[in-house]
């Protein structure tokens, strides 16, 4: 098989070369370089894609979108470090919009890695259960990601929640009025509870310290939602995410 590794750290590709002996492994460090690479290289059977890139504004979602556009027959596997809680929404988005064939933890040993890659190559289900919670999150009605961000206004509020911590300021910056922020925080607290219940293992960071005066000033809902917004700040500010979400809202 020809396998493409999209990961900013070369040693990941080198390690996969060793593990996937017998297959041709080629890599690219930045999803932004993918279109040029795909124009020159033979088609790939599989792509193993990292989600976040230290030196690039592009993300794994950019890579998935590029592959869907330029190499739709390439089966995709998401590769991630599951300790990173701020990857959760990116993973949800990846499964919501691109249906990758598997999720592969970077800490997976050589045996599991090879088994997952080869199973996906054969068209079999992945032997790793890592992707199951994300698939079931997509199967929810409405999908879990849609419960978190339902429209453009909500995306705007999430974005501002990461920058401001007072109800009125958030409302002003998001061009909504504070009552909308109140309704938003109440609804999103419920959605966050669902997220935490669904992904009990990798995603729950320490809850914010509920300082009494802070709680009194802003309300417990607001504190929780701000905490969540700050963990996922990059997701809510990501242009690729905004583009994908907007397309899904238009298609409703």
């Amino acid at each position: 098989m020809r396998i493409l590794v999209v990961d900013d750290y070369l040693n990941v590709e080198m390690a996969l070369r060793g593990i996937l002996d017998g297959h041709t492994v080629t890599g690219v460090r930045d999803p932004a370089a993918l279109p040029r690479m795909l124009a020159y290289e033979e088609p790939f059977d599989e792509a193993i894609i990292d989600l976040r890139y230290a030196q690039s504004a592009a993300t794994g979602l950019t890579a998935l979108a590029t592959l869907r556009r330029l190499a739709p027959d390439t089966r995709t596997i998401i590769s991630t470090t599951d300790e990173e809680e701020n990857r959760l929404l990116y993973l949800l988005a990846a499964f919501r919009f691109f249906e990758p064939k598997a999720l592969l933890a970077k800490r997976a040993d050589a045996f599991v890695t090879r088994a997952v890659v080869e199973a996906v190559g054969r068209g079999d289900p992945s032997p790793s259960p890592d992707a199951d919670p994300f698939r079931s999150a997509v199967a929810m009605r409405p999908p879990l990601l849609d419960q978190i961000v339902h429209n453009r206004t909500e995306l705007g509020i999430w974005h501002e929640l990461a920058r401001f911590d007072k109800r009125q300021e958030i409302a002003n910056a998001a061009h909504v009025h504070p009552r909308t922020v109140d309704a938003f925080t109440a609804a999103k607290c419920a959605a966050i509870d669902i997220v935490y219940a669904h992904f009990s293992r990798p995603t729950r960071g320490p809850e914010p310290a509920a300082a009494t005066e802070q709680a009194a000033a802003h309300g417990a809902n607001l504190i929780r939602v701000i905490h969540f917004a700050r963990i996922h700040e990059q997701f809510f500010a990501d242009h690729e995410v905004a583009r994908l979400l907007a397309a899904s809202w238009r298609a409703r």
Partner: protein
Amino acid sequence: MFDSSLRTPVVYAIAIRYQTPLWRAGAMLRAGCMAAFWVLLLWFPHDTWPKDAAMLALGSIGAVTAWAHNRSSLLDFLAARNVIGLSAAARHLIGAKERATADLSGLLEGFGIISVALLYAGPLEVRPLPDTVYALGMVLIVIHVWSAFMQAMTDSSWYAPDVPPGRAVLVLRPLMPLIVAMILFAIIGYPVYWDHQAVPGGLFGVILAVAAVLLLLPFTLIYELVLRAARDASIAEVRRCRAEDAVTVHSLVKNAEYALISEVNSDPGAGPETRSLALEMLALTEEARLKLLDRAAKLGSVELLWHCVTRILPSGGDVTAELDPASRSVQLSGTDYQLARRCLVDLITNAWKAGARRIEVAIRLEEQPGMTRTQTVLRVDDDGPGMPAGALDDPATSLAVMAEHLRGYSGSLAFSPRNGRGTRACVRWRSAW
């Protein structure tokens, strides 16, 4: 006149924080002014009360609208119900938040205060008025105008990076104090220059009131200075925090890495790949440290690569490592950069451990005839004792591991003796993506 470079997320965030309490206080202040105008009406001639009340009505509605603009629950309530006129007004006010535009409350307040001023001076003025009432009225008019236009001049929407204000309002902004001062002069100066009345304060009072309004311009410029200072202070503070983080990276991570490298080097069971990775971690940490300090050159630059790779050499030792000056400007792709880092770490370490005292490195991108992709060529010269024969054939050496990795990139690693003393290592591979 105003600084367009202030239209950044940081400044916008500062302006939002500044403006939020100001809106409320300003609306309350102007509502208080309007209430005082109603009280002063008691000293107006009784037969003019119906006309006076009508002229106060517009400004009063403006004050209520400005107050409602900050009462979202009320706007919600009205917008959700089908109250003729009010629901549409509420929806308009909700939509006008944070936009540099003339909204309903602004227009009502603006025309409202003109209407109030016309009660005291101008063709519709009411006479006779007690001097104290007239003077108080003038003071209240100036306070009202000042409060409303200070809010307009310093509104956060001037600094919105995503929805920048329109060209017309940008042109209007510095002219606003002048236009308002002219209107004010035309109205409150009327009794002095038209009717030649002896009003309290006289012409001096009129000029004082107009000058107070003109002060809006320097006030706004000072406000922008404060914004700029706040922005610069924020940036400096971020830089300080990042410098602290860089120290943390250095003291926590680098010290742990030195301990790890020491352990790996003394462990005969550690393979060459492990030794290389442990060493490369040092260069990676230096990259992260520079990035935190915002001192990292563009990723892929050989200059950054050289700085980070030479960190693995012992400081204060007698080894000299030099990069060919022409190589400094070479820009590598992400893969080539990391491959070069890996090779350089191994080659420099090997040369140093073999006893070399001078290491010279050159990096080039070479065009290949008939090929779309270049070749990356890395040359490492040293003055060491030379390579032992068959070093690349021994799989336990890091060089053999490197040669194996390079084959995956259509590359090779070759050694040749230099004239006199030392070795030339030449690494080449097809430039990657």
